[in-house]
């Protein structure tokens, strides 16, 4: 990242924080429902100091990684099969979209039924939250591959799994990245939702506790952590991959 990008970002976020502080000074809302950035920062510092924050982050990240891996692997496979076999698209494909309209809160009972109050249940809800974004993006990306590219590969003998791994996926990859990025964001969201409903460790649990204790600054602090991790991973993982792929295709 070039330093002027960093500067722009710093300026942007500084401006955001200042407007927040200004809004706080304006005193439109009472402090109990609209805390100042300072109070939030204090809460963050406290959580960091006593370690609960890091424990929460660690727990959540582990679940996230497992859930996201399942979502990406499953979504990729499903999306590719939907794009290549119309019978899959016409049956399971239509169902996927329907399932995706269901909010996580409605998945929780099923998760409890199948997995009990375990990590597996939370991971299930996480994966369900993300799989569709990956599926539909993979589907569309594969559908949109230039047919002559596929024809050329088949003409040279590529078929079956080899066609998928060495042609369909790389050819669709620049677009699939969008699906993975979304998968990540939605998995994160699904996870927090699940932790919140399961009330079972992790950042979502901390968020819920803040809510239950009506500690708005704690809630906002945790939300900032959630956002921050989301942004860091996006910047350090997905943006990097994207930049690399795009430059290879001459699109950067």
């Amino acid at each position, binding site marked *: 990242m070039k330093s002027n990008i960093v500067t722009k970002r710093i300026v942007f976020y500084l401006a955001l924080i200042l407007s927040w502080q200004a809004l706080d000074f304006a005193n439109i*809302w*009472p402090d*109990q*429902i609209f805390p100042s950035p300072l109070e939030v920062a204090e809460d963050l510092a*406290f*959580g960091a100091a*006593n370690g*609960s924050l890091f424990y929460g982050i660690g727990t959540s990240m582990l679940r996230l990684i497992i859930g996201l891996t399942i979502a990406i692997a499953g979504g990729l496979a499903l999306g590719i099969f939907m794009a290549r076999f119309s019978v899959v698209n016409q049956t399971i494909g239509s169902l996927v979209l329907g399932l995706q309209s269901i909010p996580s809160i409605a998945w*929780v*009972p099923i998760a*409890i*039924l199948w997995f*009990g*109050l375990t990590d597996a249940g939370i991971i299930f809800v996480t994966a369900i939250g993300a799989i569709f974004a990956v599926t539909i993006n993979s589907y569309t990306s594969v559908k949109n591959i230039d047919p002559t590219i596929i024809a050329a590969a088949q003409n040279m003998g590529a078929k079956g799994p080899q066609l998928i791994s060495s042609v369909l996926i790389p050819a669709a990859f620049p677009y699939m990245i969008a699906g993975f990025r979304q998968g990540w964001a939605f998995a994160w969201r699904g996870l927090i939702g699940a932790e919140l*409903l399961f*009330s*079972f460790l992790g950042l979502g649990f*901390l968020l*819920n*506790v*803040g*809510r*239950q*204790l*009506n*500690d708005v600054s*704690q809630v906002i602090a945790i939300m900032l952590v959630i956002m921050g991790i989301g942004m860091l991973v996006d910047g350090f993982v997905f943006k990097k991959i994207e930049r690399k792929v795009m430059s290879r295709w001459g699109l950067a």
Partner: protein
Amino acid sequence: NSNQISSSEDTVRVAFFPNIGHSTAIVGLEKEIFTKKLGDEIKIEAKIFDSGPQVIESLFANSIDIAYVGPGPTINGFLKSHGQDLKIIAGAASGGASFVAHPDSGLDDANDLSGKKIAAPQISNTQDISLRHYLDQNNLTVAEKGGTVYVVNIANPDIYTLFAKGDIDAAWVPEPWATMLVQELNGKRVFFEEELWPDEKFASVLLVARSDFLLQNPVLVDRWLEAHVETTEWINANPDETEIVFNDYLKKLTGKTLPPEIIHESFSNLHITYDPIESSVLTFAQRADSLGYLGRQGYDLEGIFELQQLNSIQEMTQNG
């Protein structure tokens, strides 16, 4: 050989909320009263919840054995499982809810409710039933049935926000929310809910067990009940220390505490008891049914209480 527990289980999974009304569970665990009674071989798994229906769900799904939960979800769960899945084995708390008016609402007593917006937590929870029944009693009809009173069902923290913004005129909420509305937002406590009940008491938290668990581990349940009763007595004997234990628990769990004034007043507004106050549970069911919460087929609560064990423990403690 009373120290030897013969049971098929070596773990008890207990559900409760990190709330004031659930202090028996919290204090019993923190002071290790349960551990002592059950012995070292039995592991206690604490499962923390924040919604009654979800506790029932988990109970159905065989994910918990014993739960501290309100009468609304308990009645629902009993009926949904056709009386199969759960039993009330003791009470845990009585009272602890209030009707609080917004300072600008002009509500001084209950006579002025027409045209007002009143909040309660989730549909069919204990406060919601009480509020809707109360409106009925005062010949007021809710907006969705063509009446003039707007009942808003929304989570307690959101009630707080709406109250602070002045978007609602009153709220029927449990502790510590009622006290927070009063102390922090200048709300006016119109009345305590128990004032509307015979003897000023009604069950607000119950101790419930999964039927199968009860059947297979009678000794374990016995021990739990003994500890439950002991903890209840300890709490009533040591109110100040209870507040500290409770706040320490919050701190340990979440890194957060409630202001001591709020804890103190909240505790003084509710009564920790092992009495399930059976009549109040039955009354709740009647009210819930008349509100249409108990389904289209009518209801039958026969066998919801399983208090034999509690009664014999009570006798023993009274005798001893």
